[in-house]
């Protein structure tokens, strides 16, 4: 294949850059949205003005964050076409539908009701306003649903078949796509884990007010709601994360192997709690994988297959092929061979159709169907190409898990001390909460790095590698736009931070005339 490698790398880098910037803002929208909606619900229920004031303050920050989230989101939609045009054709029949539905159902809901939320305090009833706030949050959440359905489908393609006449994959079961276990789990895990970010943000900022001896009641009320939301969010995320790991083990074993730094699999495999990977380690060499590691015996086998003694394949096993627990997986070299046969069969089919040779077309179709499962492997030059960046996935996974555990403990401790009315005097803990805000973002980003770097080199698992998904543009063009986006998004992010900090300093007592 003659696609410029630097084009592929710059295209990936640009998508990663823009997606990571977008993901700075989305989890706060999802998490903070729920918290402020609960606060407004309390205002509606109790009629106490303090809840209205509290909700309005967080809404102000929500607005600052939401605007840049919207602005960065549109980039991704465009990039599927501008940078991944072959992908857009090859799977657009399936992937495009969730994007369109997201626009029709979710975006208009957000765009309409957020206007009521900001501008409607004096124009609509309390009930209508509350409904609008919840509908804004609901709109953001179902927007996440549709994009995560699309993302999950890329990791576990279902509800489709390849049509050799149109030379693309076509949807044949909409509900298989929507109700895919990977999609549902990904949705719950992503949305609910975003509550962690929202909660950490609210707890951290509220702590700042306490450190500054300002707005005590507002801060403590906010801490109360946020710690409860955050704790529930993390507990549910642990449950959905466990299911996520199980799904990955079944559908993307290479990703799981990378997450665990597992080169040589086996039965009763332990989970690496902490470890330092040997930077010299490559697939199929004899070097030690870890310089240091602490394993929890048999746990990986259990998490992967719900059986402490089950077999978990490692990177080398997947590359070389293996037989275990009545399952035989052929080697990547054999898959590449079958993939090349599928590609050749598709070429033969196309020629036969043009020549109106129905017999030859039928024979080619049969070969294609027999080998299509490995179609994407046909684009590789060496088996090692199927291995993602192991250190990045391995460490990101641990960062995510360890920090999520840290926040669970932090939220519970803060809730307890707040409940006992001692938090307001614990300046050291308030500082811990404030300084923990960036850690929440790191947790969230690390989760996405595991999901997206771990599934490399595939855009569509087993069907389309990134190398065959790019657009026909020069690497120089993509490099240029990469730096344009880097500069622009960084500048806008700094602007957002500056406004956010100023709004926080002004506090809930300040009049916000920008939304009146």
């Amino acid at each position: 294949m003659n696609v410029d490698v630097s084009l592929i790398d710059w295209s990936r880098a640009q998508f990663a850059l823009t997606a990571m910037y977008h993901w700075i803002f989305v989890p706060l929208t999802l998490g903070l949205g729920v918290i402020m909606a609960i606060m407004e619900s309390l205002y509606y229920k109790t009629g106490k003005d303090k809840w209205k004031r509290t909700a309005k303050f967080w809404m102000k920050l929500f607005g600052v964050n939401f605007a840049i989230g919207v602005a960065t989101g549109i980039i991704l939609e465009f990039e599927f076409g501008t940078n991944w045009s072959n992908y857009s054709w090859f799977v657009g029949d399936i992937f495009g539908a969730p994007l369109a539905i997201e626009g029709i159902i979710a975006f208009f809901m957000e765009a309409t009701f957020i206007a009521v939320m900001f501008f409607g305090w004096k124009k609509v009833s309390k009930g209508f306003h509350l409904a609008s706030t919840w509908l804004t949050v609901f709109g953001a959440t179902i927007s996440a649903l549709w994009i995560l359905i699309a993302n999950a489908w890329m990791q576990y393609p279902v509800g489709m078949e390849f049509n050799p006449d149109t030379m693309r994959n076509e949807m044949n079961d909409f509900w298989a796509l929507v109700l895919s276990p990977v999609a549902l789990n990904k949705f719950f895990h992503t949305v609910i884990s975003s509550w962690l970010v929202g909660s950490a943000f609210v707890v951290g900022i509220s702590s700042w007010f306490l450190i500054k001896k300002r707005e005590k009641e507002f801060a403590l009320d906010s801490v109360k709601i946020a710690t409860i939301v955050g704790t529930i969010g993390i507990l549910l995320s642990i449950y959905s994360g466990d299911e996520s790991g199980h799904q990955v083990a079944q559908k993307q074993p290479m990703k799981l192997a990378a997450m665990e730094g597992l080169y040589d699999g086996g039965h009763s495999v332990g989970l690496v709690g902490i470890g330092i990977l040997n930077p010299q380690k490559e697939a199929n060499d004899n070097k030690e994988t870890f310089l240091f590691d602490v394993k929890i015996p048999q746990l990986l086998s259990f998490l992967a297959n719900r059986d402490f003694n089950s077999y978990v394949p490692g990177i080398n096993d997947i590359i070389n092929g293996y037989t275990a627990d009545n399952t035989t997986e052929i080697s990547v070299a054999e898959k590449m061979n079958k993939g090349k046969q599928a590609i050749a069969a598709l070429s033969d089919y196309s020629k036969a159709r043009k020549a109106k040779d129905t017999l030859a077309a039928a024979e080619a179709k049969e070969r294609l169907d027999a080998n299509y499962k490995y179609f994407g492997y046909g684009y590789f030059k060496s088996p090692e190409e199927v291995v993602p960046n192991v250190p990045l996935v391995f460490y990101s996974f641990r960062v995510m898990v360890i920090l999520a555990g840290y926040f669970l403990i932090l939220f519970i401790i803060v809730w307890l001390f707040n409940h006992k009315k001692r938090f307001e005097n614990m300046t050291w803990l308030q500082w811990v909460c404030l300084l923990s805000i960036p850690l929440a973002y790191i947790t969230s980003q690390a989760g996405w790095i595991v999901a997206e770097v771990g599934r490399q080199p595939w855009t569509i698992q087993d069907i389309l590698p990134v190398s065959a998904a790019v657009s026909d543009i020069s690497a120089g063009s993509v490099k240029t736009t990469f730096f344009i986006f880097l500069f622009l998004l960084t500048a806008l992010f700094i602007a957002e931070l500056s406004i956010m900090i100023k709004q926080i300093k002004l506090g809930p007592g300040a009049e916000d005339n920008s939304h009146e």
Partner: protein
Amino acid sequence: MDYAFFQHYWWFLVSLLAALLVFLLFVQGGQSLIYQLGKKESELRLLIDSLGKKWELTFTTLVTFGGAFFASFPLFYSTSFGGAYWVWILLLLTFVIQGVSFEYIFKQGNLYGQKTFKVFLFLNGLLAPIVIGTAVSTFFYGAEFIVNKDNLTGVMPIISQWQNSWHGLEALQVFDNVALGLAVFFLARCLACLYFINNINEENINTKAHKHLTINAVAFLLFFLYYIIRLLFKEGWRQDAVSGIISIEPYLYWHNLLQMPVVLVILLLGVVGVLYGFIRTYLCPKFRKGIWFAGIGTVLTVLAVLLLAGFNNTAYYPSLVDTQSSLTIANSSSSLFTLKAMSIVSLFIPFVLAYIWYVWRKMDKK
């Protein structure tokens, strides 16, 4: 209801979304007028506050239009977005800077100052309508690309390949393309004037909006009439319904208009609506509902123009280097299954429009 029905249905929906988008570009038109209409701080504030309540509708319509086009005609998305790279990136950048500007411009802590975001809004207001209009014009004037699905099985597996290094910017070298871009730009400014007249109760702004409506309406009509007349007399690319062969046909769009009288009626109604909105507002200074007439007229006109581009076996994205690579709604659409599934979802659209109308009616009540 067969495959062709759903292909036409989705071309209609995509065209309708595009038409609504052009109407909603009054936000961009307003942004391009902020230096002229908002010379005083208080006026600027009124203008931006007024537009700031509507910008998300335009933005959302653009995103939905993109998503719907991707889902229903993925070969266009693949060919045009990947090929005309710089045009789409330019459009994208202008919308990214717009997205934050309304929220940040008057906020305390605005690090870059009001002027920066004012420039951002102006740039989006200036460039977005021109780029959109120019890009849409390539639906009639074509672009230089080749689509070869057999590439999937070759050493360079990318099916859509652009045939020049300008990657879309070459469209700006064709005056007719730019003429449509300018027509859309001046139309957006006219609609913005009508919107301000309707939405802002301030005499000075009202007077200036009337003045600018006149100037921009004349400019719009010049470019629009030039474009439409040229379009009706130019050749087009048509696909033979039986053989699938695409060939060039003189006066194709004129023929389309005559062969699709409903589209002709829509076009005429649209143009009348736009003109009525302009003229009545010009003649009656107290008349404030011009935006609705011109807005609906805009939607109908753009809808008709886009139906001319895609219906009646017309190639809506002609290839200037390989006629058979030209895209039609038949050869570029999603599968029947996907179009059907999305058609069910599209039944939500009236409900969405209804709640948008209900909410804004409530919000705009004085």
